[in-house]
């Protein structure tokens, strides 16, 4: 900002100039002293070449009083015109007002009460050398863009002419070789807020005109597509092997690509927890049984003693009635089903569809027997109907699965999912619920 042209310079003869922070008056120290002659304030400062208090004031003042799109078009200030290599061709070179010179097309579109949408394309010709020192620029967005350009260029062999970088018309950058001027086209669109202006009073700071998602998306687009990098020969540049987007990995790691998934309420968080639990629920479920294990299961013919109380029984998977003499497949837990019915289930889970006992029969037979009887009304292990799924009424199923019975988490190996869920919930919401 030291080179800002529209500024009264130090007078000859090194007279010290004073600046009042209260009323922004300026005067010569040898004429009126160090107390402000206007407002009598003592909050004054000597203006020096390397310390000009007007800089701060004017910058803050600029932000408030310039047009809003000045804020949304930060790259306009990224380079001062005096460094322009084609400086003498540019009739606007001395004017630090890029509004007309550089904006080739500008659309101004009201989007609602108090809001508008500005889209503009800026053409700037910048010497690459400036990008190196651009970091000292007062305009942070300008410096930031220089940084981006450096990154993109750094991943690029500097001597290789490259194709234009195009991201669906949003931004375009065409750096040439080291010595050639850079041509940067940068389209920046923003939603800004209009406020009534009052030149005589300080105005409140504007709200940020962009939310972070928009900015991030823009950055991803700018960084995400840098064609031509992979064509770089190995000998051409020490940077030839650097992956095209040095920042992408970092950004991806920070945001996980999901900066849109921020949650702001307990409900939203819980929904995500539920979603995660649903996703992991299937991974908690037992894996599929091998075809050999399925084939190795014993077949059995339905006999009189396998029928239920009403002398009928059904395969509890297809609910078809089975008759005496029909062939069924029996699991180690003594539950039986049509072979094709149970095979369909076992190809997904290696447990009994009814009692969730493993089908390998690794448990002792007494255990299997006990578990086979669990949930049935029968108490005697020798009662043949107790192990017959077809004999179980819907009522007993409803009762045994009633969530109000609320089995302790982890009690049953098969209910690992809800147990985990309970623990998660308690861990996260316990303080509010207890």
């Amino acid at each position, binding site marked *: 900002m030291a080179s800002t042209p529209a500024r009264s310079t130090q007078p000859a003869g090194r007279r010290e100039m004073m600046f009042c922070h209260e009323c922004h008056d300026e005067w010569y120290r040898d004429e009126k002293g160090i107390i402000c002659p206007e407002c009598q304030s003592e909050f004054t400062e000597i203006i020096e070449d390397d310390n000009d208090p007007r800089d701060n004031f004017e910058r803050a003042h600029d932000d408030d009083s310039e047009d809003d799109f000045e804020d949304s078009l930060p790259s306009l200030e990224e380079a001062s015109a005096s460094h322009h290599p084609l400086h003498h061709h540019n009739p606007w070179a001395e004017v630090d007002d890029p509004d007309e010179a550089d904006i080739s097309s500008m659309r101004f579109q009201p989007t609602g009460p108090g809001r508008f949408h500005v889209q503009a394309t800026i053409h700037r010709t910048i010497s690459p050398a400036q990008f190196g020192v651009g970091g000292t620029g007062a305009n942070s967005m300008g410096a930031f863009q220089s940084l981006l350009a450096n990154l993109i260029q750094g991943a690029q062999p500097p001597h290789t002419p490259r194709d234009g970088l195009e991201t669906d018309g949003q931004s375009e950058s065409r750096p040439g070789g080291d010595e050639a001027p850079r041509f940067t086209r940068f389209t920046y669109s923003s939603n800004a807020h209009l406020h009534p202006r009052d030149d005589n009073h300080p105005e409140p700071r504007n709200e940020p005109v962009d939310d972070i998602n928009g900015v991030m998306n823009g950055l991803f687009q700018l960084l995400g597509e840098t064609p031509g990098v992979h064509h770089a020969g190995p000998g051409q540049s020490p940077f030839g092997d650097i992956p095209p987007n040095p920042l992408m990995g970092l950004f991806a790691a920070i945001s996980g690509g999901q900066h849109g998934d921020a949650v702001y309420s307990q409900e939203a968080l819980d929904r995500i927890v539920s979603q995660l639990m*649903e996703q992991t629920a299937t991974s908690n*479920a037992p894996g599929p049984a091998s075809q050999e294990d399925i084939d190795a299961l014993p077949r059995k013919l339905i006999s009189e003693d396998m029928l239920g109380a009403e002398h009928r029984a059904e395969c509890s*998977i297809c*609910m078809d009635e089975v008759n005496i003499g029909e062939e069924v497949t029996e699991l180690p837990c003594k539950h039986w089903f049509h072979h094709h*019915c149970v095979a369909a289930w076992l190809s997904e889970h290696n447990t009994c569809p009814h009692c969730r006992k493993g089908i390998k029969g690794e448990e002792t037979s007494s255990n299997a027997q006990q578990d086979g009887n669990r949930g049935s009304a029968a108490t005697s292990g020798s009662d043949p109907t107790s192990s017959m799924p077809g004999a179980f009424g*819907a009522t007993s199923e*409803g009762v045994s*699965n009633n969530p*109000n019975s609320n089995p302790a988490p982890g009690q049953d190996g098969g209910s690992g*999912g809800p147990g985990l869920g309970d623990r998660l919930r308690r861990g996260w919401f316990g303080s509010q619920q207890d």
Partner: protein
Amino acid sequence: MSAGAKKRIMREYGECLADTPPGMKINFDEQNMTKWEVLLDGPDQSYYAGGHFKLEINFPNEYPFKPPVVAFKTKIYHPNVSNDDKGSMCLGLLRPDEWKPPNKVVAVLRLIQTLLIEPNIDDAIEPSIANEYKENRKEFEKSAKDWVKRYAK
């Protein structure tokens, strides 16, 4: 969907017809038998008494190996029903990892009725409603009845 699955759904519908739990009506479309519409009266002993709730039961292609999907089409203020346009329920035997093929729709319907009478706050999909049910039953009752008046008449 396999022929076996369709057959089973038909069978279950037959069973439900023969033994529909009280306060329930099932609309069954033979053209689209995987989507049942259930009209459920709020149980008398519940906060939802007097309300008429429309539910949708969708049978997945893998039925009965995967659980049916239950959704309240009528808005209901309940800890176990999601408070959004889906009105989904996912607990107990409806959970994918707890479902087993021998379970029947009629058991699902009974579970829903039971939950209307007594919500399961330990397995809530809406923790804030569950918390209110636990901490401030009066307020919960007010909201639940208010929603019945507003949405379930």
